[in-house]
C-alpha cells in the first residue's frame, strides 16, 4: 500500500493526465459529475455521490457509431474508431464499480459490444471507499462493501491522506507510472485504513435501508411478481421521466438514431429509458402501452429478469441515486418494500 497527501493530489492528477485521459468527479455549476480533468478544473472527491454514476466513461450517454458521407448520390460509410488509448477513471465508488460488473454481463457477452469492450480494455478504475455513507445508500443489500471497492486500484481518504492499494495488473501498472509521487505506507497506515473500514462498516449498519430484505426477489419470481396488483398503485406518481435510468450505474438500454448533418448522416446511439413512452417503439406501436407496464418493466428487469439470466446477479447495486433524484420520490427501495408489505399478494 502507498499513500499520498491530499494537497499533492493535484500533482498526481497532473502526472496521470500527462500520459492519458483522466476522468474524475468535477464540480460544475454546483453539481458534481465525472468529467475529463484538465489543469485548473475543480476535482471534487468529497461529494459522496456524483449525480450520474461513472458509467459514462465506458458507456457514454451518446456516441457516434459511424458516419455516412454523401457526395451527390454516392454514400461512403466511415466507421468510428474504437478507443485505443489508455485512460483512468478516478474516484468511482464501490457501488459504481459493481455497476460495471453488471454492464460487463451485458456488453461483454456474445455478441460483444466492441465500443464498450475497447473502453473497458483501456480504462483503469481507481475506486474510493465511501468515507461517510448516506441514508439513501443500500449497497450492502446487494453484497457490495462500501469500505473495500473491488477496482484496479482501491483508495481510502483518511484525515487528509489518500491511501492507495493496487489490486489488478492494470492497477499495478498505473501505480508504477505514478510511483514517484507516492510514498510507501507502513503498519500504522495499514491500521488507519483498517479503522476507516471498520468505521464505514459501522455506519453502514446504521443506515435505514441496510437491512432491506430481498426475499422473494429472484429469477424464479417472474409470474408472481409480474402479475401482482401492487404495481397498479405503485406506479401512479411516476412522471415517466428518465432520471432514475440516467443516474443509474447499471441501466444499459440505448437507442440508435440518425442525425442529418447536411452532408450525410451520423448514426449514433444514446441512452434510452424504459420509462419513456417511445421506448422500443416499433412501426406497429409499443409493446408496453401503459406507464404501469413500463414502470414494472424497470424493476422486474433489475430484480427478476436480470438475475434469471445472470446466475442470480441483480442489476441494482444499491447506490441510492434513484432514491435521491426521483422527482416523485419513487425508487427501487419503495418497490421492494411495497411487496414486502403486501406479501406479494395476488
Amino acid at each position, binding site marked *: 500500500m502507498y499513500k499520498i497527501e491530499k494537497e499533492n493530489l493535484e500533482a498526481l492528477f497532473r502526472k496521470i493526465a500527462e500520459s492519458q485521459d483522466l476522468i474524475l468527479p468535477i464540480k460544475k455549476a454546483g453539481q458534481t459529475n465525472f468529467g475529463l480533468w484538465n489543469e485548473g478544473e475543480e476535482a471534487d472527491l468529497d461529494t459522496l455521490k456524483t449525480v450520474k454514476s461513472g458509467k459514462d466513461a465506458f458507456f457514454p450517454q451518446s456516441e457516434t457509431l459511424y458516419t455516412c458521407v*454523401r457526395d*451527390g*448520390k454516392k454514400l461512403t460509410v466511415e466507421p468510428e474508431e474504437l478507443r485505443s488509448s489508455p485512460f483512468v477513471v478516478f474516484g468511482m465508488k464501490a457501488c459504481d464499480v459493481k455497476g460495471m460488473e453488471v454492464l460487463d454481463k451485458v456488453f461483454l457477452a456474445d455478441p460483444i459490444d466492441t465500443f464498450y469492450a475497447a473502453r473497458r480494455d483501456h480504462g483503469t478504475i481507481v475506486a474510493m471507499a465511501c468515507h461517510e455513507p448516506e441514508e439513501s445508500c443500500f449497497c450492502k443489500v446487494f453484497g457490495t462493501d462500501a469500505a473495500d471497492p473491488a477496482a484496479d486500484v482501491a483508495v481510502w481518504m483518511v484525515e487528509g491522506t489518500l491511501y492507495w492499494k493496487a489490486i489488478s495488473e492494470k492497477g499495478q501498472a498505473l501505480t508504477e507510472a505514478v510511483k514517484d509521487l507516492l510514498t510507501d505506507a507502513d503498519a500504522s497506515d495499514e491500521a488507519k485504513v483498517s479503522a476507516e473500514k471498520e468505521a464505514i462498516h459501522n455506519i453502514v449498519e446504521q443506515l435505514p435501508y441496510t437491512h432491506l430484505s430481498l426475499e422473494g426477489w429472484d429469477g424464479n419470481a417472474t409470474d408472481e411478481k409480474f402479475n401482482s396488483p401492487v404495481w397498479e398503485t405503485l406506479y401512479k406518481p411516476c412522471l415517466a421521466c428518465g432520471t432514475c435510468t440516467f443516474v443509474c450505474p447499471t441501466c444499459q438500454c440505448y437507442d440508435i438514431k440518425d442525425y*442529418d448533418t*447536411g*452532408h450525410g448522416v451520423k448514426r449514433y446511439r444514446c441512452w434510452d429509458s424504459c420509462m419513456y413512452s417511445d421506448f422500443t417503439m416499433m412501426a*406497429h*406501436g*409499443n409493446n408496453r*402501452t*401503459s406507464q404501469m407496464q413500463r414502470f414494472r418493466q424497470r424493476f422486474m428487469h433489475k430484480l427478476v429478469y436480470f438475475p434469471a439470466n445472470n446466475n442470480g446477479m441483480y442489476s441494482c447495486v444499491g447506490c441510492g441515486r434513484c432514491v435521491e433524484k426521483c422527482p416523485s420520490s419513487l425508487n427501487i427501495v419503495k418497490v421492494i418494500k411495497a411487496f414486502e408489505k403486501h406479501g406479494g399478494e395476488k
Partner: protein
Amino acid sequence: MQRIGVFVCHCGTNIAATVDVKKVVEMAAKEPGVVHAEDYQYMCSEAGQAKIINAIHEKNLTGIVVCSCSPRMHEATFRKAAAKAGLNPYMVEIANIREHCSWIHKDMEEATLKAVILARAAIAKVNLDAPLQPGESLVTKRALVIGGGIAGIQSALDIAEAGYEVDIVEKLPSIGGRMSQLDKTFPTLDCSACILTPKMVEAAAHEKINIYTYSEVEKVSGFVGDFTVDIRKKARSVDMSKCTGCGVCSEKCPSKKNANEFNRGLNNRSAIYIPFAQAIPNVPVIDRENCIKFKTGKCGACSKVCAAGAIDYEQKDEIVTQKYGAIVVATGFDVIPLDKYDEYAYSQSKDVITSLELERIMNAAGPTKGHLERLSDGKAPKNIVFVQCVGSRCSDERGKSYCSKICCMYTAKHAMLIRDKYPDTNVTVFYIDVRTPGKNFDEFYRRAVEDYGVNYVKGQVGKVIPQPDGTLMVQASDLLENKQIHMEADMVVLAAAIEPNKDVRKIATMLTASIDTNNFLTEAHAKLRPVESPTAGIFLSGVCQGPKDIPETVAQAGAAAVKAIGLLAKDKLTTNPCTAHSDELLCNGCSQCANVCPYGAISYEEKQVNDHGIRETRRIAVVNNALCQGCGACTVTCPSGAMDLQGFSNRQILAEVDAICR
C-alpha cells in the same frame, strides 16, 4: 422516394446571362430523387411545357421542380402543365432563380451557386410534397339577412332581385330599423319615412323575400355555402294570418302606461301594440311583461274586441330551421347609454335629450306630434344648445375612441330645421371639429351657419346645470375666443355616440365572425375586402361594420349583396387544398389553435381514437377545409405539432432550411 424532374429555364438571357444554367442542371441531377434534369430557353412557352409533359410520361416523374421566374408569375402555368400530364398539380415546386437571383446578382459564379442552392431547396420540398385535392362543397341558394333596417332591407332586395331566396330576421315586431325613427334626412331634408316606407313595402311584397319579424337567430352551424340556422320566432300572441291590422285591440287595451320604445320612451303605448303607423307587418304584438292577461290571468279585452279572432294567448315560440348559402349581417346600431354623463344632466333634466329623441319630438308621429317643445313643461324652447361628440372621440372608458361620423351632419340638419320652423329660437352648437366629408355635406353645413344663422362655437361643454326656474345653465369654453361661456338654455341636445347593437357579440360568436374591441364586425381586409367578414360566407352590411350614414349604408348593403350573390351563383365551391390539418393522435384538444384562427375554421369534437393500441375518447381539433385559408397561424400555436399545413408542412419548410444551410 419521389422521382423528380428538374427543369431550368434560361428565360432568354434573363437568367442565362448571370446563371450558368448548364451547371445548375448538372448539380441538380446529383440530388437524391432527381431522375431527370434539363434546361430550356423558355420553360413557360408551349414547347417548354411540352418538355415537362414529355418527361413526366417518359420518366414516370412524381415531382417537378422548375427553376425559373417567381412562382407568383408562372406557378399556375406549370401546375396546369403537370396536371395535363396526369400529375397532381401540387407536386410542382418553383425555384425562383430570376427575381431572387439572376436579376440581382452580377457575379456569375455567385449567382450560379445560389441558383443551385435554391434548386436544392425546391427539390427538398418536392421530396416531401403530397398530392393535394381541392375539396368541393355544395352551395345552398338562399341567403339570410340578420337585421331588418335599411341595410338589411337593401341587401335583401338586391339579392332577391338577382333571383335568390332571402330571409330577413328582425328581432323587433316591425322591420324599418333606426331609419324609421328619423324625421328628415341630410343633406336633402327629405322625409325619412317617405323614402323608407316604399322600400319596406317592396321587401314585404317581394316573392323571393320572406320576413321573420319578432324573431332572433338562435343557432348557426355549418360553413360557407352550407349554413344551418335556427331562427326563434317569438310568440306574438296574435295570429298573423287572421289579423287585419284594424288597431281596435290597442285602443281597448287597458294597460296603457308602457314606455314606447319607438319614441325612445318619451311617451307610452298599450301592452298590445303596433310599433308605428307604417310598421311591416301591420300586425300588433302583445308585450307579455306588461299585459294584464299574462300577469294576472284576468282581462282578455283585446280578444273580446278582435273581430277576426286573431288574438292567441296560447301561442308559443317557434323554432324554424333553415339552410343558407350566405349570411348578411345588418344588425345596425344604437346610441350609447348616457347614464354616466352626469355633467350634461341627462338623467337629471327632462330637457336634456339625445339627438335621436329630438328626431322623435320633431316627427309628426312623435310624442309631441311634431311640435318642438320642452318635455318638462311643454313650453317652446327659446334657446337650444347642441353638444357634439358626447362619447365619441373619447379617451376615457365611458365613451368610444372613434368618430361616430353622422353627428356633425344631423346636428346641422336639426339646427337648420329648427331655425327654419321657429326663426326666433336661438341655436348654438358646441363642437370639437365639424366633419363634413361627403357630397354636398359642407355646403349643407355652411347653409346652416350662413343662411340660417346657427351659432357654431368651437369648444366643449363642461357642465349643464338645471336651474330652479327650469332653465339649464350651460358652462362651456370657446376655444377660438379663448374664454369661458355661461349660457342659459331651455333645451340641450346631446349628440350621443353610436355603438353596434348589443346583440352583435352574441351573433358574431354564433357566426365565428371576428369582432373588434368596439364590437364592430371586422372586415376580411380593411381596404380590399371591406364588406366581407374573414369568416367565409358572412357579409357585412351597414353600421355593424363601422359608423355610416344612410347613403353609405345603402351602398355597402348593395356591395354585401353583390358578394353574397357571387357566392350563391356558384353551384359548388372549390376549396384551397393548402389548408391546415390536425393529426388526431397528437392533438391535445387545448383550443389554442382555435384562438388564433381568423376564420373560425377550427372546431372540436369528442372522438374515439386508437393511439397505438390505446383506445380512448379525446377532444380533437377539426379543421373545416371550406373555411381554412391556409395562413398557418394555428400550426405555430400548436405545441405538439399536431396542426400542420398542407403544401407548407413543418417538415417541408425544415427541409428547405436544411438545404439552404448545408
